[in-house]
């Protein structure tokens, strides 16, 4: 490829050279305007939960493993969500458990995105045989069922929060790797990247100034989606008794409501709060992540969680209005 080829492409495209390299910041503000109510709502909810995770242990009215009344005492002014099967304050456990869930969610998501992102960028940028090998490996790991793998890893190493973070992160990197690789591959073909290469920029420079900033928004969207997955996975692990027994978590609360026979006490306050918390935060993360992904990468719109309006060719009966 010669420089003139690239230039003629620019001319053909009728674009002034300055606009060829899209500025990430400008794109981000543009995106902000385009954000749907769903994304905003999800982001607000997630912020709230992050806040709770930060200050939860400080504002929890009681110690988490302190018996402060009768087993399954019903909600009262001093215990707004009642007590659980150990006579512990449900609200306090919920607030402190938020920290466990959010830490696991955030850290595991970051771990998986770091691994997946690195592999995706390398595979997409280097291409050729490296790409083939890396994507093959990714394919193999994509097929190995995540939950059984998670269970045996947690059984061998688990029972503390750090190990659980690492296990979840190590298991969920595959989707990010494929996604990022596809994006990097398409970026490599862009005129401004090819021109930078032709002007003699080193591979490292092209990668860090042209490729990485462009995939970062997608990485962030994926991280948010991954938070939902990781929080979900944490409740699984805790529910199966593989979590850290000394820190309260939402998964462990669900488990103890079942094991403690909350039903015989009609103790809905021990059953509902942890499940609702997980559902709300997972839903919020899904909405934000999916919304971001949709607006960042319209070609991914056939994605598996398509929550949006489809533009269709007019159907019978709608023809006149078009």
């Amino acid at each position, binding site marked *: 490829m010669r420089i003139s080829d690239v230039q003629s492409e620019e001319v053909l495209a009728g674009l002034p050279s300055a606009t060829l390299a899209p500025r990430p910041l400008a794109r981000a503000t543009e995106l902000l305007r385009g954000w749907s109510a769903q994304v905003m709502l999800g982001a607000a909810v997630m912020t709230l939960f992050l806040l709770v995770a930060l200050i939860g242990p400080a504002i929890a009215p009681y110690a988490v493993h302190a018996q402060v009344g009768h087993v399954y005492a019903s909600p009262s002014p001093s215990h707004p969500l009642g007590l659980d099967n150990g006579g512990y304050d449900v609200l306090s456990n919920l607030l402190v458990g938020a920290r466990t869930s959010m830490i696991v969610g955030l850290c595991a998501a970051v771990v998986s995105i770091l691994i997946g992102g690195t592999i995706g960028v390398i595979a997409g940028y280097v291409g050729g045989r490296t790409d083939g090998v890396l994507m093959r490996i990714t394919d193999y790991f994509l097929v*190995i069922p995540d939950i059984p793998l998670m269970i045996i890893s947690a059984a*061998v190493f688990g029972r503390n929060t750090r190990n659980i973070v690492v296990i979840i992160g190590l298991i969920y990197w595959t989707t990010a790797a494929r996604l990022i690789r596809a994006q990097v591959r398409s970026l490599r073909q862009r005129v401004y990247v090819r021109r930078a290469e032709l002007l003699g920029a080193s591979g490292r420079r092209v990668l860090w100034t042209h490729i990485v900033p462009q995939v970062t928004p997608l990485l962030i969207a994926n991280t948010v989606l991954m938070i939902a997955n990781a929080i979900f996975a944490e409740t699984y692990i805790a529910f199966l008794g593989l979590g850290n027994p000394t820190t309260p978590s939402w998964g462990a609360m669900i488990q103890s409501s079942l094991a403690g026979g909350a039903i015989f006490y009609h103790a809905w306050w021990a059953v509902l709060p942890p499940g609702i918390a997980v559902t709300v935060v997972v839903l919020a993360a899904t*909405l934000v992540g999916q919304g971001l992904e949709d607006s960042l990468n319209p070609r991914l719109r056939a994605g598996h969680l398509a929550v949006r309006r489809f533009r269709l060719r007019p159907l019978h009966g709608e023809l006149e209005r078009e």
Partner: protein
Amino acid sequence: MSYTIKRVGFAVLTMFIAVTLDFFLFRVLPGSAVSGLRCQNCTLQFKQAIIHQYGLDKPKFEQYLIFLVRLLHGDLGTSVANNQPVWSDISGPLLNTLPMLLAGTLVAIVIGVLSGVVSAWRRGTLVDRGSLWTSLVFYAMPTQWIGVLVVFYVASVLGLPRAGIQSSTLGILGTASTWATIVDRTRHLILPALTLGVGLYGQFALVTRSAMLETLGEDYVLTARAKGLSNLTVIRRHALRNATLPLVTLIALSAGSIVGGAIVVEDVFSYPGIGLATVDAINQNDYPVLQGIFVVLTVSVILANLAADLLYMRLDPRVRRELDGVTG
């Protein structure tokens, strides 16, 4: 044809990698399963005998080869907890899980497809929004929590058993008839299957909806409508049939999460399947059994994926031609 061979080769390699991972996790990494054999009041001789019995004193690579050869003979090892072959420990639970798993998947597909079709047909309306949000909320709920809610609040209303696979009173007055056993087992199956189905249906609904929206915009659907076919026929014969393809892929891809869901659902309902066996093995630190369960589940999921891919090729002549054209 060449695609089929390649695809089978891929599946076999994946199994090999999974099995290697299995060995690596339990035998090679420090602080792994071998230390699970540690016990407080065992004598040194006893420990050494155990280590020798499980072949843990041999070099790692030799252990790995023995492990592989045994696996190829269908030998999954011996349970630490009861000294039985792992296979005989988990084949029973596996058989119990299968009908529950299939019923649950069926529930998920039925609810998912119905809700997706209605959503797509009435797109943009209140019905669409309602079904979309319902799917999303169920998608976000932890399956085990749905199970707990069902055990606590639904079981008594429906008058269905909330635990086990069979009534303990069954067969107390002489052998129960086959029919009575089937009825009783089905009654025990309903709630776990329902829980699994409800926990999984969300993504089926979302995928059906997007696939249907795509096919509904196609010219052949417009033609079908112009011919004056009824709505039901258009949906069934023209739109939904072409929307099945992404669904097949999704079902295969979610084989892993279906299995995962089944594990916690069984734990909730004390349903004596592979999930409960997993939990028992975890509680007893029975690593050979856990190892065996992982191998069995992984191989099943990989085979399910393989089957779906080959099915996909059969279902879509375009893919068949393209793949065989490129590779063959």
